[in-house]
Structures are given as structure tokens and as C-alpha cells.
């Protein structure tokens, strides 16, 4: 890949622990924006950004409709809305029906981001007990981007990374620490 322009991460059951091994590892001057979708119940909205802001050196915030995507930021999709990436590298929210029972949907984020960023996107599927994200990760790889999945053997809930690895032949299976190291490395290359 020619240099990553964005990173998308999807996680479900066990998300907070898994993300806690990755996001705090990114340095303050990290040059690549990170977009994260986590399945959370609609009434628990707005908890994730403050939680991770306390642990991260980057600015962590909830993604807002039509907001530009900028380096130095980690964006969390709000609960009960889908998060999409536009070709002009802004974010849109949508109230469309849930996809695979999920809103936000990891597939919706990954597919729109793959469209917008093509080969300069990195997609990461972490722990989860459903199959959301598998089609999205395949779209990332099909557009020439890098596809990673947490090693299902070590994952808190293996179903989601397993499904992703099964559907997306190009995806690499990695431990959480290896994913963190890989992402940190992308920022210095």
C-alpha cells in the first residue's frame, strides 16, 4: 500500500477491552484518522468517546454529520445511526434501518470508506459475537486496502473475526498487540 489515509475499526462484544489495547498505543502526532464503529445499545450512546478520551493521546470524539475527517482524531459513530464516509472525506450519518440487526453497522462504514479511500484504507475487525463487518472487510480488500482481523483464538468473542477471515481471503489474522504495533508503524513510515 502507498501510505494509509484512514483506518476503520469495527468491534462488538468485548470491544472496550480490545480497543483499550489499540487506541491508547497511538501517539499524539499520529497522522492517520481513525473511525470506529462499536455495537452499543441505543440508550448507552455518547459514552465511548469520553471513555477513550481519558486513555488516549489523540483527540477522541463522536462523529458528527458532514464533519471533515482529519488526522489527529479518533471518531466514534454515534449509537442508533449509521456512519458513512463520503468521497470528499467528510462523514455522514443515516437513520436507515439496521443492517444485520446492527445500527451502527460495521459493513456500512467499511463499504463506504472503501469507496472513498480505495487502496489507502486499513480495515480492522475485532472481537464480536455476530457477522457484521465481514462483507465490509471484503470490500476494503477488494478496493486494494489492507484487511486485518483479530486472531479469533485469542478474541473475547471469536465469531466476528472468524466470519471476516472466512469471507475475506486477503485478511490477515493478528493478535491485538500485533495490530497495535502495525498501526503505530503505519504512522511512522
Amino acid at each position: 500500500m502507498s501510505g494509509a489515509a484512514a483506518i476503520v475499526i469495527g468491534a462488538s462484544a468485548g470491544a472496550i477491552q480490545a480497543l483499550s489495547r489499540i487506541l491508547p498505543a497511538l501517539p499524539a502526532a499520529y497522522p492517520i484518522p481513525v473511525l470506529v464503529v462499536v455495537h452499543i445499545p441505543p440508550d448507552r450512546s455518547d459514552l465511548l468517546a469520553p471513555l477513550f478520551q481519558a486513555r488516549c493521546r489523540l483527540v477522541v470524539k463522536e462523529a458528527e454529520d458532514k464533519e471533515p475527517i482529519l488526522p489527529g482524531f479518533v471518531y466514534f459513530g454515534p449509537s442508533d445511526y449509521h456512519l458513512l464516509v463520503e468521497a470528499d472525506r467528510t462523514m455522514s450519518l443515516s437513520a436507515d434501518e439496521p443492517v444485520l440487526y446492527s445500527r451502527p453497522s460495521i459493513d456500512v462504514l467499511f463499504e463506504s470508506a472503501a469507496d472513498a479511500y480505495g487502496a489507502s484504507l486499513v480495515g480492522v475487525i475485532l472481537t464480536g459475537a455476530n457477522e457484521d463487518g465481514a462483507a465490509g472487510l471484503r470490500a476494503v480488500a477488494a478496493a486494494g486496502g489492507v484487511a486485518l482481523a483479530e486472531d479469533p483464538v485469542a478474541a473475547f468473542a471469536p465469531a466476528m473475526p472468524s466470519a471476516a477471515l472466512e469471507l475475506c481471503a486477503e485478511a490477515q489474522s493478528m493478535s491485538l498487540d500485533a495490530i497495535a504495533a502495525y498501526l503505530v508503524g503505519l504512522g511512522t513510515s
Partner: protein
Amino acid sequence: MTKAGDDVEDIEIHLLLEALFRRYHYDFRHYAPASIKRRLKQARQQLGFHSFSALQDAVLHDAAMVPRLLNYLTVQVSEMFRDPGYFRAIREKVVPHLRTYPSLKVWIAGCSSGEELHSFAILFREEGLLDRTLFYATDINPGALEIAASGVYALDRIKAFTENHQMSGGKSSLSDYYTAAYGRAVFDKTLRSRVVFSDHSLVTDAVFAEAQLISCRNVLIYFDRPLQDRAVGLFRDSLVRKGFLGLGSKENLRFSGHACAFTEFVREEKIYQRREP
């Protein structure tokens, strides 16, 4: 990497939206593109076309395709008392101001199949305002407007509606307002006796009516910024001075060119008040 705009699918989508506008005057050309693309892909697949160009050909030559396509391009997802905190704020903070008017006009813009309208009608009945209120319920999807005017919803949705209603500070029981039959809940038609349903587009149509309150929720997120501005301009011109505008929980006026025409009235619930002109 394919640059946006050069991609064959993106060209086809652009042409399809242009065709829809030129032939039928439905204007989706400035909706947020990522969502439109996703929904058009579903339409292409489920309506059985191999390309967007083939879909365009069918739409141009067969008007019967239009309502079917419209059901993909517009998002009919709604709930009664969606975001109970919003309706609680309307009840506790806005209603006291509305009481001071001898007659009221309320515009529900992008009302979909009427869940939001019925929520307001029930809230206004509970607050004793319904008899002096005229509602305008508008949308661009005629099928959705028909459901709104019938007030019939699947019975399995009622549990969630009831919980929302209670959380919004409802003073009665939702079951007072519908009768259940054959898996459907039929809402009391007196809730709709002073409602004008109308096909109206925030993109292509003009100011609708003078209103004390406008509620437009989860419609603006589907528009790009300039289109959002156009719609907010319509709201500004339709509101009486000190009238109220309520938006969806992830919508706000912060970046709008018309922001200065409004003050934040209940910030967390995205309720704004029109300034004195």
C-alpha cells in the same frame, strides 16, 4: 485507487439522478452521496437490474417504476416518540409557550408514515392543545403519506411505542388511542381530524405555511450542506417570530448559514427558537 467521479458506477448514478429529476422532478442530486449509492445498489439488486444504466432506462420509460424507486431513495424508518427526551422537552419547555396562542399551526416536515405526527397529536391532546391546532404533515413519498393518513401500524411495534410514550412523560396510556385488530393497531381518527397531509419537498418546493412549531427530524442528515441550508431557510421563513424548530438528535444548526436567525432553546434536544427578525 479510483478517483471519485471517474468510477463508472458513480457516473451512472449521477445520470440516473439527473434523469429522475428531468423527467419526474424528484431531486436527489444533492443528497449525501454515500447513502444514496448504498440505497441505489439495493434497488438495482432487488429490482433485478444488472446496472444503474438499465435501471435508468426503465425509470425513464415507465412511470410505474418511480414509486418503487422512491421507496429505496427515501428512508422510511420512524418510531412513535422516538428519542423520548425530545418529546419531554417539547412538553415541558415548549408547550407552556404554545399555550399563549389562541390557535396553533404545527408543521411536521418529512413525516414519513406518520409516527412523529401521531406522537405530537397525542401529546397535544394530553396537554389540551389539540382542538386549537392545525397540523401540516408533509413528505415526498406518497405511499408513506397514505399510511400516515390511515394511522395503522403493525401491532408488534406498539410495545416500543408505549415505552417511548411513557418515557416522554406521557400523561395517559397509549392504548387509549388505538384499537387492536388482526395484528394491527388502528389509531383514533380524531387525532387526525385537523391534519393536512401534503406532498411537499424541502428541496424543490417553497415556503409552506406560517407555523408556531416545526419539527423536522432525521431528514436533514440525508442532505448535503447547501441543501440543508435551503431547508433551514424555508423553516426560518415559515416560523412566526419566537416560533420553535425541532431537529433530530444528531442534527444541528451550528454550521448552517441561517444559524444567526435562531437561538438554542433546549440545546441537548436540538430545539431552536426563531429570533425576532
